[in-house]
């Protein structure tokens, strides 16, 4: 196999912080390489070295050489690499230049001066290749997340690059849309022999497709090997691999199919008892809530009860009305009809300050809540705004995420720390009900485990928690109850054992392997331990 791209002895550092040190990476033709690692270890930096955006858009000092087909391109700016390296960023919408699908596909070719007939032909070919021909005249902003991602991939494919670089292509997508996008990418690798370098947090989605994994270890190093070899002791691993490690399966299963075959060798395990629903008092009860945006019915006649100590997870496709429902429950979002009762009040009729003491909400982009220069200032402002004792917010923050430097700028915090800060600010007003909209964005496995702990603690304090997420594995960890929305209506609700296991797209990996009541690896570990103790 011929090597397309070669990174030789790459080093990259900001002032005193060394991100990459003596990194070598060779990408062969027609290969899909997954870049994995914890948040903030330099996955995006590695991708940026290839596209030329690092160091030009980030600052810092780059050393070493990048070879494409044997020729050095490290001195070339990104625009001169455009016909060789195609790059799709985390938020495809932010990178769109034009406003319709067809023009966006042609944009790159226009820049390269491709002949008009060739352009026309390639646009049609790409529309078919990605299955987006029916979207050709659509406004890019009106597309769903998965469609936008496919258009973004198409728009770099039209220039026929040698390498495709993708930064978290499925992070904002629901499971089904993510599968569509990944199927498209695999098809490109298989049919066109395209080389793909892809960074992703949710390994469970991508590992089955990867030829090799490049693990960014965090001390500037990079480990590149077969997925099985890397995942055997990687700090980030999908639940399937965790299960395999736990049961000491050899070779390590990477797909659900592999794991099922191994699962026959497991001893008979006592399935986890369905948790007894404790006596709880409802804190928020909504009846017949309907939200309408213009002519579009976002939420249709939804009944929902949030009770003390319970974590409810809201799932559903992108655009199924999760955010609209959350904002309506908070009281800011206008409902067309229905009743809402929190603590005897209807939040919609209260002032913003009173609402905060009834229902707390952390929006999708937690950074929207923050506006001051230091963590200490943010906490002080939150205390002042909620008439809380000075230091309330800070002590909440220390419980949620200990050890954040008060002098740090909120934007310098990691994704998880920033979320914890926003959460602490919202909790300062002591709301009994807490709503979280897509809190797992940008969090790695450790970050999600931390968030799961925080959410369980908040519930244990007697709060009612509702969170919307696409992340099936996270939902399996935290949910006491799952509600699935489609087209604004509740299509199923109940215990996670029932709802998640019933749905083919929402079933977590452990359920796919072991069948119904099993949800997470921890349950299997507990059962194995009990078995061992019993035997």
């Amino acid at each position: 196999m011929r090597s397309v791209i070669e990174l030789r002895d790459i080093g990259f550092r900001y002032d005193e912080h060394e991100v990459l040190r003596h990194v070598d990476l060779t990408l062969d033709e027609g290969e899909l390489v997954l870049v994995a690692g914890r948040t903030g270890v330099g996955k995006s930096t590695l991708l940026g070295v290839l596209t030329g955006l690092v160091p030009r858009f980030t600052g810092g000092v780059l050393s070493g050489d990048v070879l494409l087909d044997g020729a050095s391109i490290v001195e070339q700016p990104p625009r001169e690499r455009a016909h060789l390296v195609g790059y799709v960023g985390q938020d495809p919408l932010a990178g769109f230049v034009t406003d319709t699908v067809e023009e966006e596909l042609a944009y790159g070719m226009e820049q390269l001066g491709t002949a008009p007939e060739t352009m026309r032909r390639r646009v049609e070919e790409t529309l078919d290749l990605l299955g987006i021909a029916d979207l050709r005249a659509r406004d890019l902003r009106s597309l769903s997340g998965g469609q936008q991602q496919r258009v973004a991939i198409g728009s770099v494919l039209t220039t026929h690059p040698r390498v495709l670089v993708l930064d978290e292509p499925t992070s904002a997508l629901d499971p089904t849309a993510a599968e569509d996008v990944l199927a498209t990418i695999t098809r490109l690798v298989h049919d066109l022999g395209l080389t793909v370098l892809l960074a992703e947090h949710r390994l469970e989605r991508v590992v089955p497709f990867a030829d090799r994994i490049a693990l960014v270890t965090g001390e500037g190093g990079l480990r590149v090997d077969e997925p099985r070899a890397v995942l055997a002791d990687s700090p980030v691993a999908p639940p399937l691999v965790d299960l395999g490690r736990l049961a000491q399966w050899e070779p390590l299963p990477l797909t659900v199919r592999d794991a099922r075959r191994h699962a026959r060798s497991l001893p008979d395990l006592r399935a986890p008892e369905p948790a007894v629903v404790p006596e709880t008092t409802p804190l928020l009860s909504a009846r017949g809530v309907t939200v309408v945006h213009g002519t579009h019915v976002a939420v249709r006649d939804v009944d929902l009860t949030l009770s003390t100590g319970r974590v409810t997870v809201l799932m559903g496709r992108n655009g199924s009305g999760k955010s609209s429902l959350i904002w309506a429950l908070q009281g800011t979002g206008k409902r067309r009809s229905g009743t809402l009762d929190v603590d005897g009040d209807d939040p919609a009729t209260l002032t913003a300050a009173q609402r905060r003491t009834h229902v707390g909400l952390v929006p999708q982009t937690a950074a929207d809540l923050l506006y001051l220069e230091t963590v200490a200032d943010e906490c002080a402002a939150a205390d002042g705004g909620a008439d809380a004792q000075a230091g309330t917010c800070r002590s909440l923050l220390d419980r949620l995420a200990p050890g954040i430097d008060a002098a740090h700028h909120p934007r310098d915090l990691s994704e998880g720390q920033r979320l914890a800060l926003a959460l602490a600010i919202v909790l300062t007003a002591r709301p009994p009900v807490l709503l979280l909209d897509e809190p797992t964005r940008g969090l790695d496995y450790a970050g999600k485990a931390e968030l799961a702990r925080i959410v369980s603690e908040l519930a244990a304090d007697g709060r009612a928690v509702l969170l919307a997420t696409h992340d099936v594995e996270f939902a399996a960890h935290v949910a006491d109850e799952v509600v699935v929305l489609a087209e604004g209506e509740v299509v199923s609700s109940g215990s996670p054992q029932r709802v998640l296991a019933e749905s083919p797209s929402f079933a977590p990996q452990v359920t796919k392997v072991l069948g119904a009541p099993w949800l997470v690896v921890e349950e299997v570990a507990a059962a194995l331990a009990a078995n061992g103790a019993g035997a």
Partner: protein
Amino acid sequence: MTGSAPSTRALPRDLHPIAWWSWAIGLATAASLTTNPLLLLLLMGSATVVVMARRSGHPFGRSFRLYVLLAVVTVVLRVVFRILFGGQEIGNVLLDLPEVPLPDWAAGVRLLGPITSEALLAGLYDGLRLATIILCVGAANSLANPKRLLASVPPALYEIGTALVVAVTIFPQLADSARRVHAAQALRGGATSGVGRLRRFLVPVLEDALERSLALAAGMDTRGYGRSGGASPRERWVTGSLLLLALTGICVGTYAWLDPTAPRVLALPMLGAGVVVAVLGLVSAGRRVQRTRYRPDPWRTPELATVGVGIVVAVLGWYVGHTQVPVAYPGVDVMPYLSPLALVVGIIGTVPAFTTPVPASALAPREATA
């Protein structure tokens, strides 16, 4: 008009945006050269008829209603201002309001006072003129995609065109981000008044805008925007000096043209020479550009006809204004009337409603609703 019969059966396609803008500017020019309310109403009617017949299916195609609203507000404001500030004794007094005495520093400004029918009519005519111009701009906006207009600039100005397109695109995003931040900030306590409140709102919106801009810049850069192409330093030097020379020529020419004491040689000839050099510079700059256009809008007979209609309306409007002064600028004490020529000016603007092809983009939503 040539070939109106076959072109009514022309295949659906979007007309070149420059054609629509030329037509609209022609109508607006005619409107700016008259205060005759009948003529102005006719011009408004022509613009509206064409919009109804040929507007595109894109979101901006629905923006015409906003412009109508703006036009109505303009007329009303004009009249109200005449009542508030335009009190005068001379003329047919309709309502004798007392004048509000103002201090000395406001000398020259009158508040209230007698309302005369002349003042009201003058305000109405004036407002109508402005409203017609607004409506013409609105018509152009709903007929032609403003982004495609920006994208059809000559290759040498491509960078500026792209910058404008991006600016137009960023605008709705900024509004989205402002709405989101506004809602989010209500979720927490903090400063509730004065600078603090403004800061709560502005900081996240600006941070968001900056991040988006960086993401967009990175996206454009990785897709080849601004590739240098193969220009030699010599070519670049020639282009640069041509454009600089042109700029100087145009500046001097404009100055001399406006200043009657300057030598006439420096006036129009200098201006003309400046424009010629500018065109040369743009051609020279455009030649080294290696970009291509995907499916550029063609320029065919319907485009020519549409531009022609715009020019005819403007020229005839100018002619009426110069030769038939009582028609173009009727007094406020007599009933305004139209001459046959003025009537032609008023209604010939509707011709593109029949001579242009149906826009391709208008069909999709119709099929969708059917």
